[in-house]
């Protein structure tokens, strides 16, 4: 009964979405103003129904109702509670339902809380959102029904891919989806403004919080995903330029550019058409991301199953949305008035440079991600594009971008003088040069990329906090703090990446029980290897006694795990986190002479990579709160 209720709720939400589109579109015709109000109510009702549908699916997973095909195929009664719950979206159908649920809730939130925009623009925005939602509803109802029954019900379910049996699963997909959906809301705002020819600062201020929300969640999603891959896959790497990772990086890049240009539009009324274009690009990237991940065109942990029909469906949706968005943009961009002009040397100028560089990096990542797919489709030849390409092509641009990030906030809006800028950056510049000399003396063999990365990170960190210099810190607006923290986070992350790439020490050995192996500053003593068991797995576990110099020794226990349903082996790395880095240990196989393979890494400062990511997201949160509070106050003052 529960599955049927969920299915009916899904259908009703889809119908309301259709109603929202038509009601919205006809309300925009002259003389139909009476229809404007009900559109908001429809959007709220749609959000409520789709949430009900999703909650019911969660309940089916928690109860392990095996008469539902999706549960039988992806769950198992012996699975821990958290993974039954998170397993709801650990599969294709469930994750698509999560996608539309978030979209529906976001639409309801816009309808309920957005009061600054003219009513017509808001209704056009909601209609655009309904349009996006409809495609996904159709996809769910006709090609991936999560509530399909299975008759007769099997006695036991198939279980969840062990790689996904990790607390990360509970957070990683919803976080990224919030990001994707947030971008689609920002895009809907852009469509609304283009339809009603209402592109200006008021619109930019309404759109900005959604861009910020999307950007915060994408940042968190990427950071968490990177750490998850790092400790779960056991290869010691934190970014693999896997197409699925790129699928989350590309929307992030576009959102970062959009976030900066929407600020110019909101504050200075500049970059109007450019901001619209970026909204279209960002949305396209989140659609491409969804396509790459959900179509099964890529085979990875993320694609769950290969099904060409679904891939085709999403490809058609992708074409319709991106094509439609570009067409609307092309038709209406002529009616967008020019914004305020500015000097090349100005805050706006730096933000334009930021936007251009990010766009270029985005282009490089996009080409590298799609190239193998295109080549295979056209010639049948198989190839892969990985780290060497991305580092070589995008690396120099990224470093330049960090340099501009440091200088940009020290420029005045509208017009500034290069000489004044040079005076303001002299402390960070001096620090950069000092760092260059110090690193060259301490680590002479360092490569060009790690060297530039470390040096620029130090300079950019100093420049990021420079806007606070000689200011009354208690009266500094929260969003300025947000900017400072986010920029600092980028510098911190860059320092971690550079340090990890050059200073990592690796040891790969086959060791007998009782032997001691050195890696970096640590001595690792193999005490023994024993079998252990968990709720749905058994494992071989190595007991390593680890000691740094004369310090206290501690135990690390990397495992090779064997899961029972589905039968799969994974290796569980054991990691010790210290202030100056991480010791990463992996257990391999036993060889014919009774020795155990051990792979050990000492990775100095590696944690800075994710710490930086968290700082970036925190900065985004501060900016969001600061902006919303200031808008509230401005609204109160207007009323008074």
């Amino acid at each position: 009964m529960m599955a049927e209720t969920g299915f009916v709720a899904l259908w009703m939400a889809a119908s309301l979405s259709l109603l929202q589109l038509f009601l919205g579109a006809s309300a925009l015709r002259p003389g139909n103003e009476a229809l404007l109000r009900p559109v908001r109510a429809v959007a709220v009702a749609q959000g409520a129904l789709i949430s009900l549908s999703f909650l019911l699916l969660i309940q089916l997973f928690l109860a392990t109702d095996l008469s539902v095909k999706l549960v039988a195929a992806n769950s198992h009664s012996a699975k821990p509670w958290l993974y039954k719950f998170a397993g709801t979206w650990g599969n294709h159908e469930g994750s698509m339902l999560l996608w539309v649920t978030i979209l529906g809730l976001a639409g309801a939130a816009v309808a309920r809380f957005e009061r600054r925009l003219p009513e017509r623009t808001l209704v056009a925005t909601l209609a655009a959102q309904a349009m996006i939602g409809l495609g996904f509803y159709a996809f769910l109802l006709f090609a991936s029904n999560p509530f399909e029954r299975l008759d007769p019900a099997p006695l036991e379910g198939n279980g969840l891919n062990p790689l996904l049996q990790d607390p990360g699963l509970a957070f990683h997909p919803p976080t990224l989806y919030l990001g994707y959906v947030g971008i689609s809301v920002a895009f809907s705002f852009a469509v609304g403004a283009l339809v009603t020819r209402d592109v200006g600062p008021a619109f930019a201020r309404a759109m900005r919080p959604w861009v910020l929300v999307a950007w915060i969640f994408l940042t968190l999603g990427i950071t968490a995903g990177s750490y998850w891959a790092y400790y779960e896959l056991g290869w010691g790497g934190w970014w693999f330029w896997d197409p699925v990772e790129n699928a989350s990086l590309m929307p992030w890049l576009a959102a970062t550019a959009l976030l900066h240009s929407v600020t110019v539009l909101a504050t200075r009324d500049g970059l109007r058409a450019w901001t619209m274009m970026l909204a279209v690009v960002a949305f396209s990237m989140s659609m491409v991301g969804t396509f790459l991940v959900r179509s099964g065109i890529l085979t990875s942990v993320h694609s769950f199953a290969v099904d060409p029909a679904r891939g085709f469906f999403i490809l058609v949706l992708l074409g319709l949305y991106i094509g439609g968005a570009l067409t609307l943009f092309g038709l209406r961009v002529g009616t967008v008035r020019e914004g305020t002009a500015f000097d090349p040397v100005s805050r706006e100028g730096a933000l334009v440079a930021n936007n251009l560089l990010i766009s270029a990096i985005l282009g490089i990542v996009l080409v590298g991600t799609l190239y193998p797919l295109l080549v295979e489709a056209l010639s049948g030849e198989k190839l892969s594009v990985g780290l060497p390409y991305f580092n070589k092509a995008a690396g120099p641009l990224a470093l330049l971008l960090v340099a501009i990030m440091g200088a940009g906030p020290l420029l005045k809006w509208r017009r500034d003088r290069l000489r004044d800028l040079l005076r303001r950056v002299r402390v960070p510049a001096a620090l950069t040069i000092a760092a260059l000399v110090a690193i060259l003396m301490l680590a002479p063999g360092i490569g060009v990329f790690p060297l530039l990365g470390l040096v620029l990170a130090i300079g950019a960190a100093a420049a990021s906090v420079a806007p606070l210099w000689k200011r009354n810190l208690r009266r500094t607006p929260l969003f300025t703090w947000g900017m400072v923290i986010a920029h600092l986070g980028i510098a911190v992350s860059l320092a971690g990446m550079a340090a990890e790439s050059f200073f990592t020490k690796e040891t790969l050995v086959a060791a007998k029980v009782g032997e001691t192996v050195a890696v970096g500053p640590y001595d690792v003593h193999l005490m023994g290897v024993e079998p252990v068991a968990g709720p749905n797995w058994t494992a071989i576990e190595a007991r390593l006694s680890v000691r740094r110099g004369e310090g206290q020794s501690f135990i690390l226990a990397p495992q090779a795990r064997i899961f029972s349903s589905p039968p799969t082996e994974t290796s569980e790395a054991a990691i010790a986190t210290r202030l100056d880095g991480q010791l990463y240990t992996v257990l391999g196989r036993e060889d014919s002479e009774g020795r155990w393979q051990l792979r050990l890494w000492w990775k100095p400062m590696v944690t800075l990579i994710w710490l930086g990511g968290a700082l970036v997201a925190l900065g985004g949160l501060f900016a969001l709160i600061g902006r919303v509070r200031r808008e509230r106050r401005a609204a109160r003052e207007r009323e008074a």
Partner: protein
Amino acid sequence: MKAKHQRLTLLLLAVVAVLGAVLLAMSSLKDQAAYFYAPADVTRKGAPQARTIRIGGMVEERSVRHAGDGVTMDFLVGDETDAVIRVRFKGIVPDLFKEGSGVVAQGRFQPDGLFVADEILAKHDESYMPPEAAGERHKTGSLK
């Protein structure tokens, strides 16, 4: 500068930046993309020297030999033809690496025809193997 001129300049800059990026991307793709070779391709086209490629096929039965250091291993990768590639890998192989099943390795050919792999791609089970390996197994007819 007038607003209109500024918009034009911005547009031009944007076009130049994106085109530049794509050209840069294309040129570095030429030497950085890792092409995929099955053993038969190597026999037909010759072993590509001095560039990173991927090879894939089946690990031949009873071909795995471990070196004395316990972490280096040699094995043969074959396909439906008689062609084989000699592969050497130093490291911990992924969990499902075994004789008689599919494998994809990334690395370089040495002048003597030995393929030195620096990475064996993880293949966690039937649903999660690299597409190249899936294709290979289809050809050899062992994929059910």
